[in-house]
């Protein structure tokens, strides 16, 4: 892998995430699914002003624990 390839890797990753051309059941798809589930389940509902959610979510529980 050349230096220019390494330097442009983050940019290429961002481009491939934005301009999505991967099929389902590929490792790239799995990675996106993990990122989405992490956002949905870990983000404290108060950060999103969620009108219906109950409980602080995992990040909320952890931040509460360390703020004590």
């Amino acid at each position, binding site marked *: 892998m050349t230096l220019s390839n390494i330097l442009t890797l983050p940019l290429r990753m961002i481009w491939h995430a*934005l*301009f*999505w*051309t991967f099929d*389902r*059941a*590929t*490792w790239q*798809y*799995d990675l*996106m*699914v993990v990122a*989405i*589930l992490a*956002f*949905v*389940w870990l*983000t404290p*509902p108060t950060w*999103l*002003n*969620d*009108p*219906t*959610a*109950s*409980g602080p*979510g995992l990040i909320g529980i952890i931040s509460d624990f360390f703020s004590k």
Partner: protein
Amino acid sequence: MTFTGTVGTVCMFPLRAIIAMCVALRIHPNILTLTGVVINAWAGWSLAFGKFWIAGFIMLLANIFDFIDGKVADELNLSSKFGGFWDSVMDRFSDLFLLIGLIYLYASLDRPDYVLITALTLMFSIMTSYTRARAESIISQCKVGFMERPERIVLFMIGAFTNRMAGVLWVILVLSVLTVLDRIYFTWRELHSDEPGLST
């Protein structure tokens, strides 16, 4: 095998049995499609009154019908152009029922911010399908972008079962906007790929 591939394979076991039963009973696939929409309307009604758990189960049931109709059509040799058209149109009604249910819920909770977010999600969910359908009338295929209907439906069910609908709406909205932009860009690129000076 990937994680999502494994989940898909596991889910196919019970679905194969349901498909085989529908084939044995010779249920017309268009009836299955219509049944899915009616059940999705029921799910939308449950969402409208904040009954997320019940809505989750109803969506699960509705989407079994959504999933199997095409497979039953293939097995019964009843695949037709009208069947494809009917399926696409009914899918849009299903999306609308669910999102209108959420709009009603957030309006009744006096939350105009989430009424707006849900309305924008509705707009871009419909535009995701429209851009592909319109693009494929002028180019051979336009299958780019992450947020298609199966992803939306699974996310809705996750949001309903885990009571995290706001996060789900944000994800669907942002990724639907990107999907629409991807499809516009892809179509533009395909149509201009023959012109000199433009990269493909």
